[in-house]
């Protein structure tokens, strides 16, 4: 793929161009309706993705990361209410109609799914998949151009050109996922969401795909949001990371920085409870993620937080932009800023929160 980064304009001020986010999300909310009330799956989320950058979106199941990934692309489920701003190159995607979004999806916005087999038509050759995708969005292409573009995309993913006319079932799971990625990238979208792209794959194949994704950001201007529950994958393939908990991004920043010096207690606890090769003792977060119909007041993590203070239970923490460049939504960082703690909590807000009762296994996830 590296062979074809010849963008039409050489971009004279390359730095200025890449520093401007290709996608900028502000105060995005995606709520689902249920008989019990709305589920606040994504509740006021901000993030930016720059060209060629990979943002890892991590969190446990039910934290809203998949909803966020789809919501950004305008794929929130029927009945969901979406507001806020998803600024993609000057257009707010939230305000676009379904048809307008449909036109953007493919050439501008891409999505890579978890299950590759279900997304490929078993009766169509790989060549036909590419022909269809390319012809739909770039009708002017000749047959040879289609072939050239498709083979180039496949080669970047390690699919031999001799397999171009094969059917999906003739490929292994990992190859199918690479074909899916190639299909998503052949139109050269500016922004791609990959939703757990390696979950269904074997360890070694997963590592191969992570390598491909990691190379992508170097050789390509595509901005990628990689949704995963695997912190290792984020550390491996992402420039920046956003940690989600209960519908909110609690911490985001440079991946190395966040993993080396996690600031938000949830990030710290999540990293500690991950079983890795260097694990020497088991650690886990007590309790379960909250019900997003009635999330806890204040900080949503406070009922499970080992460092909770009185102010955490009462007032929602602000997003604190730290000197390291990370952002953490936690009172531990905010309390040092004068005037951050509301006056009514100024006196006792910093006292540790006495948990009413020990969180029992009955509440665990």
């Amino acid at each position, binding site marked *: 793929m590296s062979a074809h980064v010849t963008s039409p304009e050489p971009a004279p001020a390359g730095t200025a161009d890449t520093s401007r986010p290709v996608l900028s999300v502000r*105060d995005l*909310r995606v*709520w*689902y*309706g*249920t*008989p*019990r*009330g*709305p*589920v606040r*799956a994504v509740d*006021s989320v*901000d993030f930016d993705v720059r060209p060629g950058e990979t943002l890892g979106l991590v969190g446990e*199941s*039910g934290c*809203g*990361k*998949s*909803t966020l990934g789809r919501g950004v692309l305008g794929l929130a489920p*029927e*009945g*969901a*209410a979406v*507001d*806020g701003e998803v600024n993609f190159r000057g257009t707010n995607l939230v305000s676009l109609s379904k048809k307008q979004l449909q036109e953007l999806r493919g050439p501008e916005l891409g999505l890579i799914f978890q299950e590759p087999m279900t997304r490929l038509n078993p009766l169509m050759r790989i060549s036909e998949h590419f022909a269809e995708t390319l012809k739909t969005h770039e009708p002017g292409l000749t047959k040879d151009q289609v072939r050239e573009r498709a083979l180039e995309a496949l080669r970047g993913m390690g699919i031999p050109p001799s397999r171009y006319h094969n059917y999906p079932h003739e490929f292994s799971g990992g190859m199918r996922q690479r074909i899916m990625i190639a299909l998503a990238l052949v139109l050269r979208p500016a922004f791609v969401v990959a939703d757990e792209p390696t979950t269904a794959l074997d360890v070694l194949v997963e590592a191969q795909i992570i390598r491909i994704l990691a190379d992508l950001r170097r050789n390509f201007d595509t901005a990628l949001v990689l949704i995963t529950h695997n912190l290792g994958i984020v550390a491996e393939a992402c420039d920046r990371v956003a940690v989600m908990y209960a519908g909110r991004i609690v911490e985001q920043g440079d991946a190395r920085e966040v993993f080396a010096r996690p600031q938000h207690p949830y990030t710290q606890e999540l990293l500690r409870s991950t079983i890795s090769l260097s694990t020497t003792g088991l650690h886990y977060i007590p309790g*379960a*993620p*909250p*019900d*997003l*119909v*009635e*999330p806890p*007041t*204040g900080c949503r993590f406070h009922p499970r937080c080992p460092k909770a203070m009185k102010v955490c239970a*009462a*007032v*929602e923490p*602000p*997003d*604190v*932009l*730290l*000197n390291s460049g990370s952002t953490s939504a936690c009172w531990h*960082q*905010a309390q*040092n*800023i*004068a*005037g*951050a703690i*509301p006056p009514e909590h100024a006196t006792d807000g910093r006292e540790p929160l006495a948990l009413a009762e020990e969180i*029992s296994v*009955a*509440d665990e*996830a």
Partner: protein
Amino acid sequence: MTQTALTSAPEPGSLPVGPTPAGKRFRGLRRFLAPIRQAHGMPKAMLWTGGIITALLALTAILAPLIAPYSFDAYQSGGHQFPKQGHPSGTHLFGTTVQNFDVLSRVVYGARTALEVMILAVVFSLILGVLLGLLAGYLGGWLDRILVLVMDALFAFPYLLLAIVAGFMLSGIIGGGVVTAALSITIVYIPQYFRVVRSSALSAREQVYVEAARAMGAKPSTIVRKYLFGNVIQSVPVIATMNAGDAISTLAGLGFLGLGIQPTEAAEWGYDLQRAIDDVNSGMWWTALYPGLAIVLAILGFTLLGEGLNDVYNPTIRRRRIIRAVLPVPTARKRLHEAAGNGGGTGSTTGDNGKAGTTSETGTTPEEGDGQ
């Protein structure tokens, strides 16, 4: 992304510690009925209409001796013979038939016959169909192949023809009556239960919990009873209700062809309808109208009930009701900058100030947004 873990988050204390006997006993039933309670829109209307018609039918059948002015085979009362083909009048509200029977009484008792035959037929076919389906589905092999062959052959027959043949053969053995009619209809409906139960047993057999039961050391009979039955049986009530309407029409068809129940044994709508054919030509509408209406109503009631249940229980048909969420006015998130050792002016709120004033800063205004 599933929300199951969240929606089922237990609330300690809200549950009684230790089971209350009633709670324990009806737990399964309540779980089964929950979808019905959550029904809405079209399925709900069908359920209610069908339910009311069915209930009225059942009530009529049970209370037939109280409702009907005469017995179904009475042609006289107090030594006074009924008129032949009499117009509807004060003494005979629905008129009388060519055999001097009171139409109203025949129609009311007909409900009883219909219900009896229907219940017997449904129960017989259900028991046999479910049993054979479970065996075929779980055991497989040659038994399965033979049963499938037989059932497919039965299924391929026109159902009325099958019922006629069965009725003909059975009446030669045990005579014509309610049980004979019920048995001939039973044969028609066994394949339906068999097919549904067999296919659900086939898929349930591959489930991990069945494998787990095997790993626990459970015998095949235990697995069928405890692990397959409960999961396979769920689609059966829907078929049963759907078949109930069908059974009534088959019974009427048999009666109409004179193969059903003898008029002296019980009142039967199909038979009455057949006797009324000649009447219609001579302008006597009442002998045909009322039994016909009764047939239509009974079938309609059961069909509506069945379709309603099907909509409620069948996951492939059931469309989740889309509840639109309504967003409250957003609360601006506070954004602060960490500044090393500097207080004062560095803390700045960069949120949307216009909106910030409208709602409280905690951002947890509990707004119920589940309206349409």
